[in-house]
């Protein structure tokens, strides 16, 4: 009995010790701070650098739910996420399909399509702020200048400066541009993973190319699509730097992440900032958990 337990320990102990450092690091730097953040969100800490230990329950959350700025920001986030994901997926899948058909110099195209992701969001934002400029007359730059020069002046757009609540969708443009190459890489890998025999078999059965894509390839790409959606969704919820670089403090493009930063570090509303952070965290968990559950189930099946 004793010997067996010792042997068992010998089996798991070295492995455990090996992962212990990273467990500790993650425990402190991720889970402890999530916990601390939630604890702060339940206090009334504001206006001072001294943490408050007055427990106020869910008062901060109730205030946020009644806060018009938070409403607007959340709507902006939903709009941004919708446009960003749809755009990045559509463009990424399109590029993957094109490359999968076989092009000469595929490696070059792959690299070119992937490059935007290598640029930091801040740099992307600064370039796109210039591209999305909507000044009138001589100070126009970027896309508006291009359409003007091409005689398509009626296409002049206010982009993220319009009064419409869809202003934030303009920011989905650079975000989608930056991530579409990554989506392309994901789907290209997925397409390459589909054995050629399956297509051949379908062709032998007399299926048209379109039908092959719809009935053979589409179902096999569903797991890839799911990963892509989850990756894009959580990036979108966290996006801060890109929006800050394009329109710092602009009310039409503000999202909860920007509101959190503004109110915490400029306004010293630490508890309110922590509440926003917690809500963002919950939103991300809601997106990711079903995905993890799904992949774990898939793996267990195997």
């Amino acid at each position, binding site marked *: 009995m004793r010997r067996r337990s010792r042997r068992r320990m010998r089996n798991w102990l070295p492995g455990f010790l090996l992962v212990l450092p990273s467990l500790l690091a993650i425990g402190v730097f991720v889970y402890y701070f999530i916990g601390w953040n939630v604890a702060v969100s339940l206090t009334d800490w504001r206006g001072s650098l001294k943490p408050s230990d007055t427990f106020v329950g869910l008062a901060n959350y109730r205030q946020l739910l009644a806060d018009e*700025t938070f409403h607007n920001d959340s709507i902006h986030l939903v709009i941004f996420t919708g446009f960003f994901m749809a755009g990045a997926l559509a463009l990424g899948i399109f590029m993957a399909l094109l490359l999968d058909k076989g092009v000469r110099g595929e490696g070059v195209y792959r690299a070119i399509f992937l490059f935007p992701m290598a640029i930091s969001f801040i740099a992307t934002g600064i370039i796109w702020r210039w591209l999305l400029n909507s000044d009138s007359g001589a100070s126009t730059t970027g896309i508006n200048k291009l359409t003007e020069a091409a005689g398509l002046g009626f296409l002049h757009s206010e982009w993220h400066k319009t009064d419409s609540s869809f202003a934030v969708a303009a920011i989905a443009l650079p975000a989608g541009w930056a991530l579409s190459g990554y989506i392309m890489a994901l789907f290209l890998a997925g397409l390459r993973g589909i054995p050629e025999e399956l297509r051949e078999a379908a062709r032998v059965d007399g299926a048209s190319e379109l039908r092959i894509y719809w009935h053979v390839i589409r179902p096999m790409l569903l797991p890839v699509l799911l990963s892509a959606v989850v990756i894009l969704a959580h990036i979108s919820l966290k996006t801060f730097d890109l929006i800050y670089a394009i329109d710092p403090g602009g009310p039409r493009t503000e999202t909860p992440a920007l509101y959190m930063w503004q109110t915490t*570090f400029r306004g010293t509303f630490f508890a309110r900032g922590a509440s926003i952070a917690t809500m963002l965290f919950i939103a991300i968990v809601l997106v990711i958990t079903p995905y993890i559950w799904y992949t774990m189930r898939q793996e267990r099946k195997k």
Partner: protein
Amino acid sequence: MQIRRRQLLGAGLGASALIALPGCSDQGGGSGTPSTEKKVEVFSWWSGPGEGEGLAALIEDFKKQNPGVEFINAAVAGGSGTQARQVLTTRLLNNDPPDSYQLHAGQEAASDIKADKLEDITYLYEAGGWKSQFPKGLLDKLTIDGKIYAVPVNIHRSNLLFFNPKKLSGWGISGPPQTWSDLLAQSKTLAGKGVKVLSVGTTWTQMHLMENVLLGELGTAKYNGLWDGSTDWNGDEVIKALDTFKQILAASVVGTDDWQPTIDKVIAGTAAYNVMGDWAAGYLQGPKALKYKTDYDVVASPGSTGVYNFLADSFTLPKNAKHKEFAEAWLKECASASGQDLFNPLKGSVPARLDSDKSKYKDYLAWALQEWQNTSTVVVGSLVHGVVANNAWKSEIERAYGLFFTDKDSKKFAGAVKAAYAANK
């Protein structure tokens, strides 16, 4: 196999110990024990052109006065102090303050005072006789609950209207507007020529414009009252002034850029005016190499002639500063006439002291200094630049402004600002 496993075990233990180490060594490092080292660490956001050179000149003079003291310049760049503020917040929370840090003079200090992070330095004012050397209007704005916590190095002016005189006469306009309704009248003439009357940038520049519209429309007494509760934000006059601001904004070209590209439009002639603080004069004179009065000109913003809507950079003495003796020496340097006269011509601002050397200030600064030292000038404080509202209230005003900018509802905005004042006093 056996050996291998043992090696792995050792490696695992070693790594665990490494993780634990920093946790132990952290003790004592952060606490503010006084030190006998001869050094002083000064925290600021001065690293850009002009201000960086100004700070360097100040440091050099400090070293001359205090030989053998090592000076650590802890400057964090960006965003008129927003980035620096974040770093500083972290350090103050860890009880690891620099020996002196930069703040906008006025209510910006309120949250740090409330958190018991700042030393009352009234004793330095008394010992140095500074109270008679700074204007009284300034001292009033520096005093919080009867105590002074900061030494102002420079004075900036917020209520200025910049324009390009050549372009202005080219459009057939005889001179800059005297009131905000004059400006709206000029906007009609200019619209016919395809020119916008004002160039406005990102949110803070819009609020910078708003405070000066309020100042011009309400006058100094009521403007001051906005910040201490004696002027009712919901009153008709304030609502009317906010409506005027809305009209002005509607007639302007509103971008999302910072102030430099925004004022560039005035020089290029796509917009006629820009309301900006006097750091813009330094930018136009320096990097843009433009001549005062011929290439660019500047007057007080409409309705604020003879008023100095000021903001000032100041230095403080945090509690638990490790090198207090030299921090005091640094503050004395900041308050000295020689220090201020070295710093300000480079920074593009005027000295807070009344006994400075006028010959060092040229062009715009000569006019500014004359206005500052004129005893009939009324001194009021800026909202956007941290003089009249504490950080919490200011950020709530910014939040309300975000909604105001989208729904253009003056009454709702005024109500929100008033409620936020009561909640964050």
